[in-house]
């Protein structure tokens, strides 16, 4: 469902040097699978997700989503993607219900379909209390639930989520994780980024560790454990991102640090 082939993204800078945010990443996510991209700030997670959602054009490489090349036909590719941005901003002066309807319209849905889908999402994400209040007055958790509903309003087969649980309380966190698992049961391909290692371990079927724009390791937990000899993902990560072992697996690029976080 999601395929990244040797993605590279560099940004020009006024000083003349190029910033290399993504330095050749390849991976696949199948339907009914949750794939977690893990990495510290500036590892290239957001840039990778933006390329796969057709928001940015890769400098080199190919990204195919649901059989569509995102560079060649970004509009068509976006139709099959629900993209949850890291930013939880909403239109302050619209209500969640209005906002969801609006994004339904942008996705080309007709009115009865929008009404049904929005109602269902409000049920599933337990949004009844605030569905008709202005977004400006919502709490962080309520905003994030609205955002997830927004990404899912067109019921896309592919979900790309940038840090879906950032800054949430325990209850909302669990609600959202359960919801993501539910979407997996529906056969969707889910790609998410996070830097909560425990959460990745509990949620993801496979994990890709990103460091300085490169994928330094990839696989399910048993594979990663076997490869590094560590039990916990934190240790695996520290080991891989640390000095010598990480470089042994994949030498980091010589470019400067990543501008995107």
């Amino acid at each position, binding site marked *: 469902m999601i395929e990244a082939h040797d993605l590279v993204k560099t940004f020009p800078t006024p000083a003349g040097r190029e910033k290399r945010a993504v330095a050749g990443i390849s991976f696949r996510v199948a339907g009914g699978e949750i794939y977690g991209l893990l990495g510290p700030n500036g590892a290239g997670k957001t840039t990778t997700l933006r390329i796969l*959602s057709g*928001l940015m054009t890769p400098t080199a490489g190919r990204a195919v989503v649901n059989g569509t090349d995102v560079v060649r036909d970004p*509009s068509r590719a*976006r139709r099959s993607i629900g993209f949850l*941005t890291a*930013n939880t901003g909403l239109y302050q002066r619209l209500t969640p219900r209005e906002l969801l309807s609006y994004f339904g319209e942008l996705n080309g849905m007709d009115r009865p379909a929008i009404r049904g889908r929005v109602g269902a999402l409000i049920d599933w994400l337990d949004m009844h209390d605030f569905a008709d209040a202005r977004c400006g007055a919502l709490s962080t958790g309520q905003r994030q639930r609205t955002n997830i509903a927004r*990404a899912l309003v067109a019921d896309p087969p592919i979900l790309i989520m940038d840090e879906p649980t950032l800054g949430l309380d325990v209850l909302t966190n669990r609600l959202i994780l359960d919801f993501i698992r539910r979407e997996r049961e529906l056969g969707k391909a889910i790609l998410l980024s996070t830097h909560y290692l425990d959460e990745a371990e509990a949620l993801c079927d496979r994990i890709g560790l990103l460091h300085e724009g490169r994928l330094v390791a990839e696989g399910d937990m048993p594979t990663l454990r076997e490869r590094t000899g560590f039990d916990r993902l934190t240790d695996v990560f520290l080991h891989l991102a640390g000095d010598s072992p990480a470089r042994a697996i994949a030498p980091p690029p010589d470019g400067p640090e990543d*501008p995107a976080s």
Partner: protein
Amino acid sequence: MTRYTRVGAIYRKELINILRDRRTMIAMVVIPVVLYPMLMLGFVRAMEGDLLQLRSQRFVVEVDDEQTAGQLRRIIYAAQLSDDTPAQERAAFDVQVGRTPPEQLGEAVQLSVSLGLIHSPEPFPPRLTVELTYNEIDVRSRTAMEQLSAVLNCYGDAMTRRLLAELLVDHPRLHMQGTPDVDLVLNPVEVRSVSSATERQRGGWALGQIVPIILVLMTITGAVYPAIDLTAGERERGTLEALLATPVPILHLVAAKFLVVATVGLIAAVINVASVGATMHFGGLTRSIAEHLPVQFPAGALPIILLCMVPFALLSSAILVAACSFARTFKEAQNYVMPIIILALIPAVAATLPSARLGGILMVLPVGNMVLLTRELFQQTYTWTQVVVVLLSTTLYAMAAVAVAARLFGQEAVLFADAGSYKTLLQRRLFRPVPTPTASQALLLAALLFPATFYANSLLVDTLTEGFIRTMTWLAIVQFAGLFLLLPLGVAKYLKINVLRTFRMQLPPARAWLAAILLGASSWVIAHEFFVLQARVITPSEALKAFNEQITPQLAASPVWLVVFLMAIVPAVCEEFLFRGFLLSGVASGLPKWSAILAVSAIFGIFHFLIDRMPVTALMGVVLGYLCWQCRSIWPGILAHGMQNAFSTMLTRFPRAVDWLGLTGAGDEVFSHLPARVLVPAVIVFSAGLGIAASLRSSVSWSHMRRRGRRHRCRSDSG
């Protein structure tokens, strides 16, 4: 769902979002409806009251001694006896003895006066000299001086009349009964002026002084807030990325946003004008401005004004959106907007100068031309040429601004704060070589060339009487070689655009030459007939007749080869390079085949400033654009264009040709039909030319090429 409903959905939502914001409502409704009237009325009343108060005040006047004081009091008293100003509006003077130093005049003592007498021969009375010392920077002192001068002048008048009356009584040649009429001597010339302006024009004149600038400035300022909110605001809130992730093409997104900004700007402008109109009407303000003229809103001009405001609103909103696109935060955007408003103020204020007229370069000066056209419309003194030129030039600028803004909005460096700096968009070092210019670059070049060409053209055509060939040579050098040929070539080089491909300099297949010859040999007949038909429907303008009358004898008197070179070859080469080269290649990168050909033809038409010529030029532009597109080469178009120019300028020189065309003796041959023996073969040849052009390639292969070009560009943009 069609794209229009999507644009509609964005438009509706953005409008709701904007209108739910109290700040917008305050800026758009409360300020004009409440604050304006209060400010304007308050200000005018305060001014009036202040002046009246100042005039009717008591002033303290100092003199050197008691004797002078008495003298001055008597003069003032005598003057006021003969003055018919109402007592309450009249200043009073307290004359007292004192010696306040001149630099302290103002608060306590306003004036110091000294009187003197100069001896005059009999029977004239001695001349009175009065020296008034006042403090120029003190309002009260200055007013006292003015008021006392008026009183003294009044006194002098009375003396003149008395003296004259005495002289007239004693005059030996006059045997008058009773008191002589001194006015017979004092006013031997009576001047009366009668205004020829109609009531409506006079009313419109008063409105025309203020309303246009309010209309124009409010359209801009009204659009400021939504422009910021929909760009920098969206980014600051963090909602932009989610919007971009929807399957809506970015162009539709930008289009909807423009429409919202332009709508709000228009609404703001209309509310403002209505408010100002109402204030003037009900507040009695018109009396102060129009001096008792009845002020009427010229209702007939309103639709045209509103029609012109639409492209203007688009233009200003596009410029604002483009500027705000760079801003990361609301505050930053506000900083970018200020210089734009100031830049817009300069032409707007320049256009409000009473001597400014809607002609020459002012016709194509952005903002300024709108202010002037609105004024002409209010005064009912407009011409259709003015309306068309202002409307078309503003539309052209708006198209360019919208294209540029859309292009900027789509840049990653502008969309994502962390995706490199937008400064990299301006550094040539970082430009990637591209096959053709973008639509925004093409439209921007056209928008910049338009006023430059207009100015060069009008400047040079004015010198036509001094020497036809000289003018044509300068036109060939400045306008054609300079602006149409070298400038686009230079721009293409600078932007690292592939010159060969953009200007389609590759050689065409042999059949293309045949198509060009057939079209070039017949298109002038088609153009002529089109023009004749147009002249039957729309009366040709005076400007065109004058132009023809001026040109025709000059053409006949000049050497053939020179005329062919200057009026056929040079324009053909240069215009093809600009219009079918840079502009068509650029516009085609953003629009499908026919839309691109039509858009460039419309611009081609606008660039021929005579309003009568625009439609036929645009039509020929379509033919040449199609030929160029089909041949994938610029050269056949140059041949056809040159042939057509040569035929239409040269044919009338040859008596036999004129005879054959059946135009002899008609005088104004420009406006009469050609005989069927010319028309029928011409239509056949023309059709054959088009047919060969159509056979040159199938549209499939071209669209394939275009897609490839676009993809190539996408990649290079991302860098």
